[in-house]
């Protein structure tokens, strides 16, 4: 005789199925989430950097930062699932070469945006072409609003020279180093000196000596001795070479040096030898002690290349990541003018906090500087922040 109810205490079949499904789902949910690498048709941007020639010392670290950003981005899923492809060109540090390469990137390769260039002359040369084509140009240098004020598609990821000059003078002012000697080269240093002239009164310092040397100079001890004769409290050295730093110490001018971040590369420090001591740099990235917003970049770079990065590489990382953010938002098929418009916004990068909507299309401020001191060839972060 069958009973009106089942004496089988096991769950019913549907219940068992539901339980098993729930168990599987719970197990899957407990697994660590792994991002799917990007796949599908790539989104193409261009890069025009100085990989050879005189600016290779800047272009090569920019390329390194750019490539590690691409790798990290694509490993995380790219831009809405699609990989970012970078079509690279080398302008050989020449504006003429830059023009022919940019025409290829913009008109033949039809890239969505350009990362570069590495040099002022190249940026000014190609900016007219990219502006007309409404292709965002993420430049690592430029002349700023006086020349580029109509170029609202040219964005600057490194500071204007006037800001560099202020960063240097602010340190002198705030540390009571009121008598300032200046030693600068005829290239990079001259551009910053041009911006520094006339700021001495604003910062309450006295420029007691200004000496210039050719970028190809083989000895600058005469100029260093002239600066020494003026008895400064500090010497501001503006050059991409190690020579002036060694010259200052050779003539026994033992006051602190303040120098600009373009001189702070590990290669220049190594070439300074024993002179790499008692030098302060207004920097953006102190990789030995990165800010929280910089840590991801520093770790990724160090993992990829086995060495610490400098701000050139950080700026290139920011160029890729900020472009990627905009492309994710508006889509890769958005017209150039929309891309440019969307780019014009504040952006927290690894190098600094930018404001691409600012008049100089970069928005870096004195607050963005981090000050590093070089002591016996090693960098450490200073607590100093410039007073307004």
């Amino acid at each position, binding site marked *: 005789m069958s009973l009106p109810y089942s004496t089988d205490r096991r769950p019913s079949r549907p219940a068992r199925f539901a339980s098993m499904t729930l168990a599987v789902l719970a197990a899957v949910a407990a697994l660590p989430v792994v991002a799917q690498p990007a796949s599908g048709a790539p989104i193409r941007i261009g890069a025009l950097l100085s990989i*050879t*020639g*005189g600016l*290779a*010392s800047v272009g*090569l670290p920019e390329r390194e930062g750019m490539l590690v950003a691409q790798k990290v981005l694509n490993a995380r899923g790219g831009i809405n699932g699609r990989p970012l492809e970078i079509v690279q060109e080398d302008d050989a540090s020449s504006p003429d070469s830059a023009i022919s390469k940019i025409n290829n990137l913009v008109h033949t390769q039809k890239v969505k945006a350009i990362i570069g260039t590495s040099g002022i002359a190249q940026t000014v040369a190609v900016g007219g072409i990219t502006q007309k084509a409404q292709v965002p140009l993420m430049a690592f240098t430029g002349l700023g609003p006086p020349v580029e004020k109509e170029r609202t598609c040219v964005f600057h990821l490194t500071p204007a020279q006037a800001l560099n000059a202020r960063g240097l003078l602010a340190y002198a002012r705030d540390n009571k180093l009121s008598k300032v000697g200046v030693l600068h080269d*005829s290239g990079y240093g001259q551009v910053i000196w041009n911006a520094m002239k006339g700021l001495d009164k604003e910062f309450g310092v006295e420029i007691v000596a200004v*000496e*210039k*040397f*050719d970028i*190809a100079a*083989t*000895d*600058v*001890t*005469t*100029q260093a*001795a*002239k600066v020494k*004769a003026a008895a400064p409290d500090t010497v501001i050295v503006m050059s991409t*070479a*190690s*020579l002036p730093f060694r010259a200052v110490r*050779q*003539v*026994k001018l033992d006051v602190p040096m303040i120098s600009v971040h373009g001189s702070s590369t590990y*290669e*220049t420090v*190594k*070439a300074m*030898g024993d002179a790499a001591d008692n030098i302060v740099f207004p920097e953006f990235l102190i990789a030995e002690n990165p800010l929280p917003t910089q840590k991801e970049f520093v770790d990724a770079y160090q993992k990829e290349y086995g060495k610490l990065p400098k701000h050139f590489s950080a700026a290139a990382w920011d160029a890729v990541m900020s472009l990627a953010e905009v492309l994710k938002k508006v889509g890769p098929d958005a017209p150039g003018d929309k891309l440019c418009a969307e780019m014009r916004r504040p952006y927290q990068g690894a190098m600094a906090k930018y404001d691409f909507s600012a008049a100089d299309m970069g928005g870096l401020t004195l607050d963005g500087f981090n000050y590093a001191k070089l002591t016996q060839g090693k960098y450490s972060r200073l607590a100093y922040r410039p007073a307004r």
Partner: protein
Amino acid sequence: MPSSLILQAVLAGITSGFVYALIGVGIAVIFRGSHIVNAMQGEFAVVGALVAVFASAGAGLPLPLAATLGVAAGAGLGVLIDLLFVRPMKRRKASEESFLLLTIGLAFTLSAGALYFAGRDSHLLPPIVEGVYAIGGATIPNHALWLIALAVAVVAALRLFYRRTLLGLSMAAASADPDGATTIGIDVNRARLLTFLLGGGVGAVAGILVSPLIAMNYHMGIVYTLKGFAAAILGGIANPLGAVVGGIVLGLLESLAAVGFPSGYRDGVAMALLIVIMIVMPNGLIGRAGRVGG
């Protein structure tokens, strides 16, 4: 104006002058032996210095051995240049302008090669002696004193070689009049090969001696070539001693101009004075009008 400043300028000028002279000597050696203006002499210095750096810092070799390897690299490069490029062009009776273009092209190629193989870093060799020598309130690196002494020794040795040895005389003869030299049994090709070997070696010595003072990188070659060329022309291009005199004059002009004028005008003043010297003495300070031909 303090006397120590003038003395510093003199010491700096002499140091720079011998740097230019060492490159100028190599240019003079190659011109003397082949009548080719070598626009890549600075690259011999770069190659020599970088090989020495990687041999000592990279492979851990003792510095004298590393320096010897650097000199050998420069000399070997000179030999390759002659065998691969100069000799075939000579066979085809190439013009002087063609050789100048060749060496300019090679300068860019070697600079790119140095960037590829050695990277963008600047490299310093350790000095022969550390520290600086102070005199009358001015200073000069101890290594610079050694550089000057060794440069003088190189030039003296070259002078003896060209004047007192059969090989040196035959190398000069082969350059001045290849046909005449051939008729008296001088192997012109071999003489030119030895010229490039010597020029490359001297260039490498220059780079190795300079790089404890000025960090060497891939881009320095053209800088040194321009200065060395000015020194060689000023002294009389086929005369190694002339290159030394020219180099010292150039170095002192630059340095003293920086004392007497705002330093921004230094190069303009020095070059203006050089132009005046060349107008007054077109064959150089100790050069002389040579035979045309060969």
